[in-house]
């Protein structure tokens, strides 16, 4: 199996191919460093245009980095065409070959690479169709299948030649929510059964947290943070990560006094006790909606309720405090226009520490 690393990878379109200066083109990737461990399920997540797909395409060999290198197990892949990289790719559009049957699609890669363990191509195709629960569907045409089935054919096709790496580019985004969740579990099950190193691209942060061993959050062509889903959620490194991953309330405050790890910080005329970092008189901290509780008696703020969304287990309340948007999680739809909540200093997490 294979580990993967991107070392200082930049991608610039047009211009003189440099990332800054007067002759810079459009920067798609800027100095991306990523290491994916052998057998890991690694996800690139970010808004559209953040560079996640470009990163995946650089790994697959469809895009050549302007600077830096992609390495498989330490082997530099610069100049190696896609067909010689031993990667399996699944695209959002599935890209099934419409003029071939399901079996021919799955078997296409076996025209160029022998099936593993000395199996025949037919056996390998049957094995893969079995793996994705499509046994007996080999003779169908792709367009006779549902979206979810087509997705599984695409997965089987990518896996058939036993690639070193599996690359998935938003493979679920064309499917409806329920199907997406069940397919997600199936992909995860197959991945851990095969133990194949996998890079998954999605714009859906909830999906990224649910499925991955580790996640890289990208924005504007840069990696904002790499970490396990819990780390990304609980300890966002930057303001962007804090706001992108899950609901969050981010405050920019001026530090008025310090007392060890904590200090008094002022936002819009109110002062809160929060963790602070040394050497700066500003602090940016975030509090998850769940951290803002009616029962907490420290750091109180009174929120004007604007809308409530009933989500089943909980209610998401969108409100305003001091002209800032505030998101709360409550058990019940609140009655009345105002609501006072508070948070414990330890529920505040400092982002962008300078």
């Amino acid at each position, binding site marked *: 199996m294979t580990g993967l690393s991107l070392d200082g990878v930049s991608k610039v379109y047009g211009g003189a191919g440099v990332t800054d200066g007067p002759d810079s083109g459009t920067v798609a990737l800027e100095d991306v460093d990523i290491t994916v461990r052998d057998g890991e399920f690694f996800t690139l997540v970010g808004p559209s245009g953040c560079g996640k797909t470009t990163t995946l395409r650089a790994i697959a060999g*469809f895009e050549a980095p302007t600077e830096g290198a992609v390495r498989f197990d330490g082997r530099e892949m610069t100049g190696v065409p*896609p067909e010689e990289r031993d990667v399996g*790719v699944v695209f959002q559009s599935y890209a*099934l*070959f419409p003029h071939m049957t399901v079996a021919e699609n799955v078997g*296409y890669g076996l025209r160029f690479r022998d099936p593993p363990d000395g199996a025949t191509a037919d056996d390998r195709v049957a094995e893969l169709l079995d793996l994705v629960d499509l046994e007996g569907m080999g003779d169908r045409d792709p367009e006779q299948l549902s979206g979810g089935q087509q997705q599984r054919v695409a997965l089987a*096709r*990518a896996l058939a030649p036993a690639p070193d790496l599996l690359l998935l580019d938003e493979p679920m985004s064309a499917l409806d929510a329920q199907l997406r969740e069940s397919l997600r579990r199936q992909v995860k099950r197959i991945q851990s059964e095969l133990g194949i190193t996998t890079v998954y691209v999605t714009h859906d942060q909830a999906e990224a947290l649910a499925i991955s061993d580790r996640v890289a959050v990208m924005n504007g062509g840069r990696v904002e943070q790499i970490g396990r889903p819990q780390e990304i959620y609980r300890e966002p490194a930057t303001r962007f990560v804090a706001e992108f991953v899950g609901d969050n309330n981010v405050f920019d405050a001026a530090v008025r006094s310090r007392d060890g790890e904590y200090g008094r910080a002022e936002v819009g005329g109110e002062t809160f006790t929060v963790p602070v970092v040394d050497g700066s008189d500003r602090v940016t901290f975030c509090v998850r909606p769940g951290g803002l509780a009616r029962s907490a008696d420290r750091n109180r703020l009174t929120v004007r309720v604007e809308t409530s969304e009933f989500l089943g287990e909980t209610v998401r309340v969108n409100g305003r405090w001091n002209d800032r948007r505030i998101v709360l999680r409550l058990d019940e739809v609140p009655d009345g226009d105002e609501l006072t909540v508070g948070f414990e200093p330890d529920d505040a997490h400092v982002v962008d520490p300078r």
Partner: protein
Amino acid sequence: MRAAGLRRRSTAVRRWLEHHALSLTAIATAGVLAVMLYLPVGVVFVNAAFDDGVATLAFFREVLTDPFYVGVLADLFAEPLAVRAHLESLLGWLAAVSVSISLEYPIPGVPLPIPWPSLETPGIRTGLFGFTAYQAALSTVASVALGLPAAYILAKYEFRGRRTLRSLTILPFVLPGIMVAVGFYAMFGRTGTLNQLLGIAGLGPYPFIEWNPLAIVIVAHAFYNAPLVARVTVAAWESVDVRTVETARSLGASPRRAFRDVVVPQLLPAVLTGALLTFIFTFMTFPIVLALGGLQLATVEVWIYDRVRRLAYSEAATLAVLETVLSLGLTYAYLRYESAQSGLARGATSPSRTPLFPDLRTALSPRRVAIVGYGILTLVVFVGPMASLVVGGVTDGSGFTTRHYAFLLERQLEGADYQTLPLVAIRNSLLFGLATLVVAVPMGIVVSVVTVRADRGGAIVDTLAMLPLAVSGVVFGIGLLQGLVFGIPLPGGWRIQVTGAVAIVAAHAVAAYPFVTRNISPLLANLDPAMVESARALGASRYRALRDVELPLVASGIVAGAAFAFAISIGEFSSTVILASGGDTYTMPVAVERYLGRRSGPAIAMGTVLLVITAASFVVVDRVGGRFEG
């Protein structure tokens, strides 16, 4: 051991070939284009700009200051700085223009006065270029006028044979110009079908063509280009999202207003595209004018041909350069315009069609009656000449005869070697057609592949590769004749020389491959690029991905493009007539023109043979159901 080593090496060679197949074909295509397209065009430019190896503008000055060529503009070119004198003459001319309205009685015998505006302009000398543009403009107006109603009917009404009719609008593209000209001859000539019909009523015969050759030429141009206008307009009409019209209606627009505000702006680009293409095509018209008008109606193209026949190569080359510059400018405008328009209205819901004749009562409504009238008109314009061709082959002024075909047979059996033999022409046409196919299809595919996926570089390649559309056959023919046929000396005593059949096939392939590209590119552009990438990731080289995935999926475009290439080769006249002079490499269209010189009967019979063969290749196009949104 040795065998294994050898095998390994041969697999390595195969792998290398496979990896580079695409680039090798691309290099070959570039080579063919360089030698067979750019070199000849360059030779024409050199001929026009050099006199005995010395660069000179004398030829251009001669042409540009000769009122015979450029009319009133000659003074302007002669003394470009005498602005005052030019302005004064322009003002004097404008002052002499008068507009008057008079009462006229346009219908003989009916005392119905109609106010008739008339524009009086003092005579203006247009010159050869001016006349060429004038007849192209008239032809464009006629083509749009004849084509738009067809687009309306095809887009708005459902009737039996609508789809067939829609695909028939491609027919003129594959009809050889010389054959259409002969068809018009067979219809309007002294012994033509029209005179025969009038003869039944005791009228005529009338010399229609001699009366007003320009009108006949313009109708023949409309025959060619009105279907083109109809075709692009219908395509645009069908891609109008019916929901945009419904939105306008729901916002308070009447049907007429919604049509004007929503539909017309979406049709206009297509109509302009059709008009611009028509203007380009008719500006470079050759066989139709040559056959129907002759030198008295000479366009630039016909005059160039005449100069070549009189061996006045420098003058021909100068005219050719000027014509090419003009048509290149127009083609560039067209390509720019087309690319600005593409990408509109995708995934639209097309409007529904109403039945054309749902019942008897609506069938008599004014609109339906107008449609029937238009139908009869198109029948006369489009079916008339072709039917006349077939009929004219077996009749003369006095009834049924087989003597035209007998003439062909006799000529074949007893003709001398220097004479034009029908079977040789047919054989040449078919062989050249097949050879053109073999050369033009890979060229067209490669150009498609290179241009469809690439962005900025692709646009440049696209423009360069579409040059054949802008360079007329005659210009190209001279370039080939003077460059490759006469031979170009190279340093070291070598010579590039391409002659006879090879030169003709090269000319045909260069003229035909843009149509292959035009047929394949839209299909290729619609393919999901992720399919190729999937194939690559699965281990396929770029060439294998093309062979296994893209080409099978655009097969209909390839076959249609191939049929086009074949039909264009079969019908090509302009460069063939130059390259085939004096040899035995003449083709069917050239034979038609040669027979036309004496009596029209044998030419009409030969034209019928050409019609049958061209129709066969159209059947292939239609069966494959390819796309022709060129």
